């Protein structure tokens, strides 16, 4: 009896699994604050924004910002005695860089670093693929123990 997974809650708001790196999660939230801010922010401004619904230590926010600075995700300028932080690149630029890593993967090691689901450089054989897919579907319809695949497409 083949087990079926439950339909995952991709479209609904989700609760984060415990194993998600807490610090990584904070980094994301801090970056989102900086991206949505109209001007560079002080540590205490970021801390104030993030601790609206929870207890967050000031030093934690400071540590996260320093980590981000080390990773060159944020830049900072001294304003009086405190630093003002701003993102080093726009969010879109980061996404584009990540996608470029994932897609272009040229060079032997780069394509080994990220393990792609499928090497999607398909030029001519779309038809052959569709025919093969039809055979998979036909084959599964022929076998009695497999119900027709999946919920209806959106």
């Amino acid at each position, binding site marked *: 009896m083949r087990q079926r997974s439950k339909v995952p809650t991709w479209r609904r708001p989700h609760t984060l699994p415990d194993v998600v790196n807490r610090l990584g999660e904070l980094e994301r939230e801090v970056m989102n604050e900086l991206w949505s801010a109209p001007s560079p922010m002080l540590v205490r401004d970021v801390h104030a924004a993030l601790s609206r619904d929870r207890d967050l230590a000031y030093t934690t926010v400071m540590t996260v910002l320093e980590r981000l600075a080390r990773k060159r995700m944020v830049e900072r300028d001294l304003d009086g005695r405190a630093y003002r932080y701003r993102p080093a690149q726009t969010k879109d630029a980061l996404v584009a860089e990540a*996608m470029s890593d994932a897609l272009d993967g040229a060079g032997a090691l780069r394509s080994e*670093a990220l393990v792609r689901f*499928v090497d999607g450089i398909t030029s001519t054989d779309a038809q052959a693929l569709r025919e093969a897919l039809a055979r998979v579907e036909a084959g599964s319809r022929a076998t009695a123990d497999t119900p027709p695949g999946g919920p209806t497409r959106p």
Partner: protein
Amino acid sequence: MTPLLLGILAVVLAGPVPSVLGRVGAFTSVPRAAVVLWQAVALAAVLSAVGSGLALALRLVTMSGRAGGWALGPFRIGAHLLVLALTVTVLARLSWVLITNARTLRAIRRRHRSLVDVAGTTAPNPTGTPAAVLVLHHDVPTAYCVPALRASRVVVSDGAIARLDAVELDAVLTHENAHLRARHDLVIEVFTALWIAFPRGVRSRIALDQVRNLLEMEADDDAVRLVGAVPMARALVALSIGSSDRSSHASVAPAGVDDLAGHATSQVLRRVERLAGAGTRRAARPVLAAAVYLTAVVVMVVPTVTIALPWLRAAWRVVG
């Protein structure tokens, strides 16, 4: 005699044997067992090379101690030294490549992880493994994983999610999780290093390519076990055909892209056709798997028992 035998064995296992194994189509029906066999062949090749070197070294040492000095002529001694040098070189290159590649790979992954951790959105991992799942907000469909000991990630783009229904997405996640759980990346690292380390006339790229394909199929099987063959096949087709609308990406054109396209296309095609039930019938698979595992054991044990052990015993007597 022993060093010669082991040397020949090493060469045979590095080139001709992979050529023969690479043509065995039935392996795709039992990918996990096949990868074990490939690993056994690779390990036996390395051990034979090492053993050959050791036997040569011992022979040179014992010869120099014998009364009458160098009993063999200078030519044969020269040949011994040459082969010994080759063995040491291969081992040194292997170690060097392993270490430097590992460092580079981990640096690339670390940088990429900091990118997606910050620029992506978290999503639950419904297949229940510890890897964090991140969604990149980009229209080009892609799905991949970033292997690591503890900080692995599965990344999916909005473009990919748009092309898949919920069950197909499950298939993709299960496939990627399978790679992470079984640390397939480490297997690839070793085979890549072996291919680079063995000298050009002797080595064969077949092992690396075959193992890569087999590991993809093994991960496909994991997904099929959970969601069935149809969603898995649909996911493969949806994400590979969808990616051909990438003409807007000016930066995409790695050297030899036509070769890559042809090769990549046939790889996806092979994976989908395999899901159509091509190959060994399901009932015969456990038997085939057992035969393959047995072959792996034979490959490891037979040279050890017939060549290495007797030599070791003789060497012990000489040295001890």
